[in-house]
């Protein structure tokens, strides 16, 4: 009983925070859809859902995400194999390089692809700018890293002996892959694919910058309905649709991940020398590297050109407000971004740590177990909600008593912290959960109190993942665009918001500044993420 009470006490903080900053906004958003004028009226929602444009938007979201997921998996699998199973020179460097796209702010990815595919870009001749192909390419570019990371980690830990047994029974490398390796990797591939699909379907920045008004996903449609058309009821209806769809998707992914015999033998194999039969995969990886490098390089080169000459003019212009596009100079936005990121990081870290501790401690009584599993489910709720929905919810609920944060500088960091929360929790939980409880019991039996036990057993295991989680949260917050786009005021705009303003404004100088600002933002997040990568914490992007 005392333990259950202590558990509830510890959980009180996160529950309150999630209650105010998650349940309230999302609930308010749902209410706006179904109770438009105080009375229950689902007719509005139904009307929105039967509009032809809504159908088109939903269909576009589904098929573009599905295609982008397939492309990501197809490109990611060979690279996962090459980078995690083969002993190649520069393996680590290539792995880090292929990780960069995933941490690039979505707006930056959008800008980079416009620069690459636009009329004046190196691939402008293909006429892909503003087409669905560009959007799919942008989404895949962004998500290949997820496939490489999560499938690669599984592949690295896969016991090589069943494959050797199959080869010894006469299976050719392709047959080994089909009959032994892929079945063993299925859970990892399904989980990576479902995460990628989720990321694609809720992608905001990429679709908004590349698709504009013509191609909208559910996510960008919510934004456009709210900010451009002021049709809040329609936006609310779409948010509800998305909420339901994502929850169903997450549940489905969890089911698919389950395998008949989960006791897959884990034994990290030594990477082996490259054989002749590996060349196709190696070539595919090199090609992928080129595909990933192209937009980034075009972006960097483009930022260094003013008119027809090489120049740092675009970077110098970051101290200005552009040609009437902004209220504050980009440099000030960068300071705002960093400050916001610091705030969002400590908030999500604190919240995430408490959640992780609450979720991973072993339950002693059935009652305690029930409480814990309810809390577990509750804390995972933010996973199912897109950033735009969250931002939208903040906008319509936190602007009046009991919680009036309209003018608070904390509104944006809080929203970003919630967006980063699942990432933080998912980084810490596996490590905390992986600590053998008997270690703690051993410490306790040797006379260590609860705090001392924490310091001797938990802390040494968890400080690196904690640092890594801080890095993830910081990078996620720096690049966060979905919620921030709703909430940031023009005089306190963050860099992604500023970039979006700049590319939406006419003028060569504004565009040049957008490129320069993108490079600065990308470099900042890349530095943070490469520092995290050095910590070698296994799970990233595995939700």
């Amino acid at each position: 009983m005392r333990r259950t009470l202590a558990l509830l006490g510890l959980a009180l903080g996160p529950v309150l925070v999630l209650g105010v900053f998650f349940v309230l906004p999302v609930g308010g958003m749902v209410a706006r859809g179904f109770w438009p004028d105080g009375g229950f009226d689902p007719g509005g929602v139904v009307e929105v859902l039967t509009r032809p444009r809504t159908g088109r938007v939903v269909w576009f979201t589904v098929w573009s995400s599905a295609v982008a997921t397939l492309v990501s998996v197809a490109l990611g699998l060979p690279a996962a194999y090459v980078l995690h199973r083969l002993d190649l020179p520069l393996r680590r460097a290539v792995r880090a390089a292929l990780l960069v796209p995933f941490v690039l702010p979505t707006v930056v990815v959008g800008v980079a692809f416009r620069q690459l595919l636009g009329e004046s870009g190196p691939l402008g001749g293909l006429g892909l700018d503003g087409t669905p192909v560009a959007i799919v390419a942008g989404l895949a570019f962004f998500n290949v890293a997820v496939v490489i990371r999560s499938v690669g980690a599984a592949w690295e830990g896969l016991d090589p002996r069943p494959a050797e047994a199959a080869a010894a029974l006469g299976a050719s490398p392709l047959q080994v892959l089909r009959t032994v390796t892929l079945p063993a990797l299925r859970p990892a591939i399904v989980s990576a694919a479902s995460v990628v699909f989720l990321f694609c379907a809720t992608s905001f920045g990429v679709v908004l910058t590349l698709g504009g008004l013509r191609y909208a996903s559910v996510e960008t449609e919510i934004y456009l309905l709210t900010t451009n058309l002021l049709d809040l009821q329609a936006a609310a209806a779409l948010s509800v649709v998305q909420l339901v769809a994502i929850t169903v998707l997450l549940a489905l992914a969890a089911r698919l991940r389950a395998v008949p015999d989960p006791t897959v033998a884990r034994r990290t194999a030594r990477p082996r020398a490259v054989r002749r039969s590996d060349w196709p995969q190696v070539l595919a990886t090199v090609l992928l590297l080129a595909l990933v490098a192209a937009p980034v390089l075009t972006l960097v080169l483009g930022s260094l050109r003013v008119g027809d000459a090489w120049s740092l003019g675009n970077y110098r212009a970051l101290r200005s407000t552009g040609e009437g596009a902004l209220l504050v100079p980009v440099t000030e936005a960068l300071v705002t971004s960093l400050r916001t990121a610091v705030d969002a990081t400590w908030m999500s870290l604190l919240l995430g740590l408490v959640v992780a501790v609450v979720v991973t401690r072993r339950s002693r009584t059935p009652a305690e177990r029930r409480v814990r599993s309810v809390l577990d489910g509750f804390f995972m709720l933010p996973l199912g909600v897109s950033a735009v929905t969250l931002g939208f919810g903040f906008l319509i609920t936190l602007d009046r008593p009991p919680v009036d944060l309209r003018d608070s500088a904390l509104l944006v960091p809080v929203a970003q912290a919630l967006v980063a929360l699942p990432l933080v929790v998912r980084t810490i939980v596996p490590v905390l959960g992986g600590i053998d409880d008997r270690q703690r019991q051993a410490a306790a039996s040797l006379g260590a109190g609860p705090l001392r036990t924490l310091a001797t057993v938990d802390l040494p295991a968890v400080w690196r993942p904690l640092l890594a989680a801080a890095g993830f949260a910081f990078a996620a917050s720096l690049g966060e665009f979905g919620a921030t786009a709703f909430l940031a005021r023009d005089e306190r705009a963050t860099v992604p918001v500023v970039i979006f303003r700049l590319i939406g404004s006419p003028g060569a100088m504004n565009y040049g500044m957008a490129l320069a600002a993108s490079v600065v933002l990308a470099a900042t997040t890349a530095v943070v993420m490469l520092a995290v990568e050095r910590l070698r914490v296994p799970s990233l992007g595995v939700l």
Partner: protein
Amino acid sequence: MLSLTDVSVSYDGVPAVRDVGLDLPDGQVLAVLGPSGCGKSTLLRAVAGLEPATGSIAWDGADLSRTPTHKRDFALMFQDGQLFGHLTVARNVGYALRLRRTPDAAARVEELLALVGLEGYADRLPGTLSGGERQRVALARSLAVQPRLLLLDEPLSALDAGLRERLAVDLRRILREAGTTALMVTHDHEEAFTVADRLAVMRAGRVVQQGAIDEVWRAPVDRDTALFLGYARVLEGDAAELVLGRAAPAVAVRRSALVLDDAGRLHGTVVGARATPTQVRLVVDVAGLGEVDAVAPLDRRPALGADVRLGVDGSRLAVVGAAPTGQAV
């Protein structure tokens, strides 16, 4: 016929197998016996084509160094079976048959399951089997397409003692019935004696002795080999001469080589006695030998401190380093 000539394998410059030469005629079973870490499993993997090796590995005279594992037509059976967890027993056993699109695969699978004594297990998943059952399935799977060579990597080591003994006898029978040529590595000499026709003893990456089982058994090449083959002690110099009755550099004796015998040549004082179900195990301090092991029938249990005479059973000792059997390196 498998022939290895000067085969060496190294990991990152550290040699694991050095200049091994072996011959295995068709239809025979060769056991490579050695302590753990001696390189015997690495040698097996090199034969399977799973480790890059220098020197020559050839089958019927044809060099295999450019033949990938799956084209060697050798089946490899792992210590822990390595059954495919997502396939049923029948699908595991029929795996190689499906790869080759063999007709009547189902009948052949049933036949194999009967051979290893697992009728009725076809639809089980490997996760539900006991250790011994898994090894039987792994064996059936390896035998399915009648490989020209079966490679067995400590096939019984993961099992408990009683089961190991029974399965070793079964394994011998199954290999005999199928007429399989097999190369087995093991650290257990009993297992090697039960299953194999020929023996190669490996130590620190080298084959120190090879030959027919009884040849190796009767004339171990050196002291360590003798001890590894299960001899209790190796006596040297005068002690060897005293036991053997003629000059020899060293003699390896089984525990039962010295027997309580009133007409025996050796005199000693009993310093230890312990009864087992079949005999009494003695430790006797023999003049000129020091403390040695000896046995007595159960109905005669000499008291501690008693003076006894011991006879020598010549079939239970071996002259060490005498016969030039195989390559002594």
